[in-house]
């Protein structure tokens, strides 16, 4: 069955531009100055006080007050706490307070071997766990200086793009609910369940898969995966049209999202913001296109950018990135080679279970790999991938032992959250929820 490449349907979104690679953007417009993010004093958008100081703080002006939002609140973005200094309904300064989900994963990463490491990092960004696993595995493989087989790379790309689809669908669901359309949860989850079912068939788990491991992937694709994937891909575009009809053209969406939470590209670059947030400002930077990893240079897709840097652009970009991912998955289906799904290096890959009964060597390798772990030569490396939230990087320092000496994940949501006070400045508090939801932070990778 010849897959029909699906081009993005952009006719409902006239503001969205299409570029295929980063353009040299040297001129800085008047509106593109990053002045306000450098401010340190009272005129900054960030309420720079410690938690105890905020509690004791009494603003001079009678009309101002400090209101606490979270960490337990119905906006389903996890445990984010916001301190808002408000004058009436307008937010003047704010401070995101995080740390309510701090799990000490980087410390745990130093206690687990490289084979176990993927189970740890996968729980950081729990909405798109395969990307964290991919970053960790790519970093380990770079340290080991091994090449994974072609089929493993294509399987990784397939899994990651499917995960991108499920993560963006989750965004549609939670964004809709935060704006007020509680039914969006049902719509978003309907499609997400189908993708999760396919992921469960391939990896064994619906979430936190521990599938992409150093050396390749954990298991080969099961029989019938092609038909299942094609079925999802053929159902999705029509359901995305549903989303368009329900959300994109709707006046309520326009009123609530357009012009809200505006940020420009210079500010984003100064703050280190990446992902759909940066692309919504009109700056086309996508690691898959500009610094390709795996085989993203062999598939054809567009990098979507917005024009105004507001919430509506971010919502539209994420919706259309689903369509781009569908396009990529069709191409992956065509190009998937046959071969090994993990490297055959005996020192790294555990042997198949049946061989353990037959060969003493296999038994010893299995024992060593699972109890002690394979040793990785000393050095340090940083590898980044483009997750649905932005640049997800993994920095590993190895001292030649079987466990990482230092494992650090650069979570995109952590840096992206810094943009929140600037977006909320002089916005109404009702917009705060819309802004947080389009920034789409996942607190697991913020707090680690």
């Amino acid at each position, binding site marked *: 069955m010849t897959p029909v490449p699906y081009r993005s349907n952009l006719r409902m979104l006239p503001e969205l531009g299409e570029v295929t690679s*980063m353009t*040299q953007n040297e001129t800085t417009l008047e509106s593109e100055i990053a002045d306000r*993010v*450098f401010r*340190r004093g009272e005129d*900054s958008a*960030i309420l*720079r*006080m*410690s*938690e*105890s100081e905020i509690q004791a703080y009494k603003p001079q002006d009678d009309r101002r007050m400090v209101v606490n939002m979270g960490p337990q609140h119905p906006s389903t973005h996890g445990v984010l706490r916001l301190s808002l200094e408000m004058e009436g309904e307008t937010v003047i300064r704010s401070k995101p307070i*995080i*740390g309510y989900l*701090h799990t*000490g994963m*980087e*410390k*745990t990463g130093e*206690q687990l071997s490289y084979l176990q490491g993927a189970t740890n990092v996968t729980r950081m960004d729990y909405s798109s766990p395969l990307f964290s696993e991919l970053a960790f595995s790519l970093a380990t493989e*770079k*340290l*080991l*200086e*091994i090449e994974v087989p072609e089929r493993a790379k294509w399987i990784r790309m397939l899994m990651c793009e499917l995960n991108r689809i499920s993560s963006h669908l989750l965004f549609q669901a939670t964004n809709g609910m935060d704006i007020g359309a509680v039914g969006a949860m049902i719509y978003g989850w309907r499609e997400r369940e189908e993708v999760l079912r396919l992921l469960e068939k391939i990896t064994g788990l619906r979430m936190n898969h521990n599938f992409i491991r150093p050396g390749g992937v954990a298991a080969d694709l099961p029989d019938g995966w092609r038909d299942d994937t094609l079925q999802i891909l053929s159902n999705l575009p029509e359901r995305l049209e549903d989303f368009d009809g329900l959300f994109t053209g709707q006046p309520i969406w326009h009123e609530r999202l357009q012009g809200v939470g505006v940020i420009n590209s210079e500010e984003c*670059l*100064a*703050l*280190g*913001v*990446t992902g759909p947030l940066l692309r919504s400002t009109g700056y086309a*930077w996508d690691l898959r296109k*500009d*610094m390709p990893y795996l085989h993203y240079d062999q598939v054809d897709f567009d990098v979507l950018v917005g024009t105004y840097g507001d919430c509506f652009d971010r919502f539209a970009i994420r919706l259309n990135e689903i369509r781009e991912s569908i396009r990529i998955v069709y191409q992956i289906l065509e190009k998937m080679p046959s071969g090994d799904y993990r490297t055959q*290096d005996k*020192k*790294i890959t555990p042997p198949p279970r049946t061989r353990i009964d037959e060969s003493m060597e296999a038994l010893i390798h299995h024992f060593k790999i699972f109890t002690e772990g394979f040793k990785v*030569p*000393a*050095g*340090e*490396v*940083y590898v*980044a991938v483009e997750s649905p939230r932005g*640049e997800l*990087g993994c*920095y590993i*320092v190895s*001292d030649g032992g079987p466990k990482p*000496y*230092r494992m*650090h994940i*650069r979570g995109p949501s*952590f*840096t992206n*959250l*810094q943009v929140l006070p600037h977006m909320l400045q002089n916005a109404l508090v009702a917009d705060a929820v819309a802004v947080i939801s389009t920034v789409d932070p996942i607190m697991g990778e913020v*707090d*680690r």
Partner: protein
Amino acid sequence: MTEIDPQEDNNAETETNSAIPSDQTMYEVPISNSRGQTILHPDRDQYLDTIKKLSEDGFKVCIDVTAVDYLENPERDLPNSISPERFEVVINLLSHQKKERLRLRIQVPESDPVISSIFDFYPGSEALEREVYDLFGIEFEGHPDPTRILMPENWNGHPLRKDYDAGAIPVQFKNAPGAG
């Protein structure tokens, strides 16, 4: 599986990568190479100047600020002119024009764990530096908001240091002799 001999990288004479000039410095700072990635090693005093030069040279995005505690691994590959200290602050920069990454590693001694903040060049480093302060205890001079970010405010100690115990509680099994 090839192994890279760490001693080789220390030798200033060997050319490890064609992208690195043979005098082995970039932006007047010694460099090293790890798996094909270039790393700059400025002193604490040279640090802000190097950042200034890099930010003017197209490295407009500060991707990551983190730190490593080398208490248990003092031997590591560094250029000959750099003396190892307990902490290393690692800065990761990205240039969109050149599509290149650059890493900086600055040695910070245990006795005086202070380093300048790069907030004035990269405001995005604010939260990242707070995290390094929280988890390692390295103070950033000139940081607008030097408070803890991940641990509770009244927490004692800096968890990611090597001498800070992971805090694992032994698992108690039901009906085990002596178990609670």
